[in-house]
């Protein structure tokens, strides 16, 4: 554990399995053997489609998996401490303070009856034990830092009075006010216009880097990761299928699923045509023994259907979980 901190690893996830029990059938395995290391100051992008386990991973790190989900095995170490061994009070002191979350739907997730200024101030007040007045001052400064127009007025506004972009900035202010060392952005800008999205992301990146924090940047939009992340991890059916530095990943995506994700943005109709083959039942139909992606994969062989691939390091800082990785 000590050597992890020495090596600058802030978050270390090893073999994490999370499942949701389903009445009278097999549990749904939301995360299967996740291994992920995040170094200090690093922004790592996690890309996957809906239901691939992105949010479950985020909530696992917060130790707040929605009921009735549970961790079957594996560990999550934050700053050398196994999070599962911490008590409720220790976790509470960590959440929002050391590990902060930027959420995707701020207008429903902010408390409708509390002014946004007070919602920001509350976080500072209880984590940093500040008097009310100090906390308010800090919240005001934070509203300015996230570049909300007319911050004095917005401080007294209620969430329903804000536009989506402004609400997103408020949520960022809440996440950043305690200068957390680790930030999880869970699909944070998915509800915004593309133009607003860019502004908000630039700002988030700036603030995260100013504070020297690390970030797990969860998104469905693979294009965004190219601009904002040091590393990219592709998650499919609860499993990381490709992990590479951003440079390596976009130079040479190796997992067929990654290529398909990229091709979804392509102008080449042949490439986009790959997605028409998608089998709805593919996820459920995937044999536990084989590759989970085999049913949707254009390169699948008998080996893929029989044998589950392991994560292989192909080149430096580029690993892929595939029997037939795509080569250039």
């Amino acid at each position, binding site marked *: 554990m000590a050597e992890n901190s020495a090596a600058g690893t802030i978050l270390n996830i090893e073999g994490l399995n999370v499942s949701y029990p389903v009445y009278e059938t097999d549990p749904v395995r939301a995360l299967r053997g996740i291994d992920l290391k995040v170094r200090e100051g690093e922004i790592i992008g996690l890309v996957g489609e809906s239901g691939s386990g992105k949010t479950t991973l985020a909530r696992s790190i*917060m130790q*707040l998996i929605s009921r009735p989900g549970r961790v079957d095995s594996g560990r999550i170490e934050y700053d050398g401490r196994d999070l599962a061994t911490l008590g409720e009070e220790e*976790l*509470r*002191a*960590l*959440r*929002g*303070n050391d590990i*902060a*979350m930027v*959420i995707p*739907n701020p207008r*429903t*997730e*902010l*408390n*409708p*009856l*509390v002014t946004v200024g007070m919602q920001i101030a*509350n*976080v500072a007040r*209880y*984590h940093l034990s500040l008097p009310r007045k100090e906390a308010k001052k800090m919240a005001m400064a934070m509203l300015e830092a996230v570049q909300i127009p007319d911050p004095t007025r917005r401080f007294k506004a*209620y969430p*329903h*009075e804000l536009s989506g972009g402004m609400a997103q900035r408020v949520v960022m202010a*809440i996440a950043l006010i305690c200068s957390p060392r680790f930030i999880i952005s869970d699909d944070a800008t998915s509800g915004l216009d593309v133009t607003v999205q860019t502004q908000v992301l630039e700002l988030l990146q700036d603030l995260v880097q100013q504070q020297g924090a690390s970030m797990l940047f969860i998104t469905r939009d693979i294009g965004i990761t190219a601009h904002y992340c040091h590393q990219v991890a592709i998650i499919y059916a609860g499993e990381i299928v490709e992990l590479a530095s951003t440079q390596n990943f976009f130079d040479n995506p190796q997992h067929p699923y990654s290529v398909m994700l990229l091709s979804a943005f392509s102008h080449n109709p042949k490439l986009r045509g790959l997605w028409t083959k998608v089998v709805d039942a593919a996820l459920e139909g995937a044999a536990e023994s084989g590759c989970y992606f085999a049913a949707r994969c254009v390169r699948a062989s008998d080996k893929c259907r029989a044998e589950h691939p392991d994560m292989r390091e192909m080149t430096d800082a580029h690993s892929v979980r595939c029997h037939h990785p795509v080569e250039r």
Partner: protein
Amino acid sequence: MRVVRYIGKRMLFIGPQLFGIILVSFFLVKLIPGDPAVMMLGPLATEATLTELRNEMGLNLSLVEQFYIYIKNLVLHGDLGRSWQTTRPVTEDLFLRMPATLELITLGLILGLLIGVPLGVGAAYLKRGILAKFSDYYGLLAGALPDFWLALVLIFFFYTILGWVPPPLGRLDFFTIAPPTVTGALLIDSLLDGNWAALGSAAGHLILPVVTLGLISGGPILKMTQSTMDRMLESDYSRYEEMCGLPKSIIIRHALRNSLPSVVTIVSVLYGFLIGGAVLVEIVFSWGGAGQYAVQGVLNADINPVLGFVFFAAVLSLIIYLIVDLIYFAIDPRVRG
């Protein structure tokens, strides 16, 4: 500004609403069989005296004419007619009795809130605890027990056996001098008068009926608080506050604030209901309240008290709903717009 405009708009509708209520209740009450003239003069009266009395009371006129006269008296003179049982104007009777009922149910509902809200919050927060079990049984019992029965049991224990409370005969002891009527609520009037003996006596007499109503109305308040709190604690913003590491006490307090509109709603419904619905408790304690007055009227074909009661209850309900809306305005910025 919005509030003022809103209240103004509501005021505009109060008149038509009241007219509608009187219209419907007037003709419905007239459907109750029974001839007031016979009730007033007794079985030995001759047909001639009966006819004379009917003419005098306007009962020979058509229903529409009677209704017109009733409305005219109400609008022009604030006159709701006379009760032949008490031989006094109904307005006077009701101004005497309505405060007794209001004092009783207001205190009863305050007690119901004091019981229901904390239990509901506790049961929602500690889902598997003893408190949640207790709340479940309590909610069930409060819904199942008749209020008059509970009142009788309480009287049996606390008056007959233990002798801790005064006898269930009215609002004051016989030998206590009542304070001059200002509001009609004895607690307030005796306080204003500085009459401590009356204050003590009134409080003593209030204990059992208030406890009865409190225990019964605590049930629905508890259920409403619990189910709303349940939903609020599972809501997105509660989860988000948890994610931000806010203390449990803050999360619960915020959830409770978001639950308040539902609690206010159920209390207002109970209040409107209890104005007439507390009548059994009033009878058990010989309270002399408005509900009792109306029931006497129904039983004796004394129509004016019944209509007067409906009118008073309607006005009070409208006032209560207006207050409720104002509370919503105060609680929820989204309503304020």
